[in-house]
């Protein structure tokens, strides 16, 4: 294998690397966002009705165990997408996100104290507004925790798409492998890890910023 000093290769290919990174983010993050939007109503249903929980939670568990490569190759058959359509990667990633989040969202909603929801109903909230402004905000810490796991795993899973010719940083890894270019592979891997860490940190900070009450000092304050 050609172990080269990165300098001649890296500056020469910087545009490709930036483009691959952007593509990777698009491949991985869009499905997480879609997955989040899908899991909220599903998690709500699972928290609301016992039968929905009995179906959704085990189903989510099963979905998560399906190997990513199998899912990626199955999607074109089921959806009729072209073989190099990004959706072939994004749909499975969205499914994994939903599989991860449905359970935690429903658990978080169930954990909202009964007297808080009762009080919300009693002061005159309609159910939908109560959900959006009382129950969902209280579930944010758990949702953010689930989202961080889902995002990091989507970052690494997105590279599997390279096996069926869908780019992103995974494309650099397969390309480097074919061209015997270790530098290209290592740079791609490091970048995947780096952006995963950065996004994870951003989610952590954003989660803290929108839930100031969780850091309010527990101690009773005397006036």
């Amino acid at each position: 294998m050609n172990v080269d000093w990165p300098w001649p290769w890296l500056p020469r290919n910087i545009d490709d690397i930036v483009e691959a990174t952007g593509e990777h983010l698009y491949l991985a993050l869009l499905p997480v966002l879609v997955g989040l939007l899908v899991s909220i109503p599903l998690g709500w249903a699972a928290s609301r009705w016992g039968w929905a929980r009995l179906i959704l939670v085990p189903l989510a568990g099963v979905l998560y165990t399906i190997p990513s490569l199998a899912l990626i190759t199955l999607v074109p058959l089921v959806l009729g997408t072209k073989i190099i359509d990004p959706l072939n990667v994004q749909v499975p990633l969205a499914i994994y996100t939903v599989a991860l989040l449905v359970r935690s969202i429903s658990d978080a909603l169930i954990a909202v104290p009964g007297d808080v929801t009762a009080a919300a109903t009693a002061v005159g909230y309609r159910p939908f507004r109560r959900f959006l402004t009382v129950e969902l905000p209280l579930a944010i810490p758990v949702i953010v925790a689930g989202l961080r796991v889902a995002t990091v795993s989507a970052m690494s899973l997105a590279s599997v798409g390279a096996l069926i010719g869908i780019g992103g940083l995974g494309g650099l890894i397969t390309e480097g492998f074919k061209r015997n270019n270790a530098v290209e592979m290592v740079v791609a891997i490091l970048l995947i890890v780096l952006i995963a860490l950065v996004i994870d940190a951003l989610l952590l900070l954003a989660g803290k910023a929108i839930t100031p009450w969780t850091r309010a000092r527990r101690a009773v304050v005397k006036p």
Partner: protein
Amino acid sequence: MIEFQAVTKQYPDGTVAVDSLDITVEDGQITVFVGPSGCGKTTSLRMINRMIDPTGGSILLDGKDIRESDPPLLRRGIGYVIQHAGLFPHRTVLDNVATVPLLTGTSKRDARKKAAELLELVGLDAGFAKRYPAQLSGGQQQRVGVARALAADPPVLLMDEPFSAVDPIVRDDLQQQLLRLQSELDKTIVFVTHDIDEAIKLGDKVAVFRVGGRLAQYDTPSALLAKPADEFVSSFVGRDRGYRALGFLTASGVPVGPLATVKVGEPRGTTEGWTVAVDADNKPLGWVSPDAAEEGTVSADGLVSGGSLFEVDSTTSGTAGSLRNALDSALSSPAAVGIAVDKEGAVVGGVTADKVLAALAEARRSGEVPT
């Protein structure tokens, strides 16, 4: 006015929580629903704002059947306070209180302004406004709960065991505050508790429920103590009801006799028996025992602590504390003489137990005591 007309709540499994309840809650009064657990008092309360719908009968609010109202709109016009306050943990104290005005479309600025006024009304410092509920004690949270319920100025206030999860001293404080608020606001309050003492203390009218959701008695507290309808009510009202009933009789007929006093720092002089030591403002500090040395001056250290004080309003003679206050002051005093004080707390004389009992006998003769 809230009217229950043959209201029944039966659950699908056959349990009857409330059984054909007829009761009328008067405007501007505190009506207490009291009873053992499982008596349907909370269910009855929650039927008023349609948190629970009855399976039979109807409830009228100011003459209008509540089933004709959209539940969320109905609830915005009825304040509601629950046991653990049920504050929204993710909102500041101020925004918790502003909840209902915001729901009814008041601008954020006006809602917060109103909320700040209410915090002051329930005795919370403005410094609490920006805090989160988790940073407050149970009693403080409950004050916020009351402020939130009052924020949209609803004519009706429902209180579901609001003070039962706080310690006795805080509870006493919250009860006093509720009575004070009520004297200013004149709300129609329905208050649920399992504590008969709380019911008697707060209620203008008390409805005693028995297990199975039936009304055992609906009366004023004094009538409840004097004339319990049956064995169940009398056992629920509990021991000492004769003594507690004295709390509803004014002690204006109890003569206040002379009482020997001595100022601290002055010689005891020739007084005999128990003597009350007073400060410069004539406020009682304690008792000087008959055994205390006659020589020297009275010091604040060697005093025997006194019993409860009986407050008479000497400026407008005729108003005074209750017979219960008067009797208790006499019984709890080491000298068997209760210290009577005026509004400022200065000693005006002494009351004895036999005088209190004589006043009670007089009240019975004149028919003031229901028999």
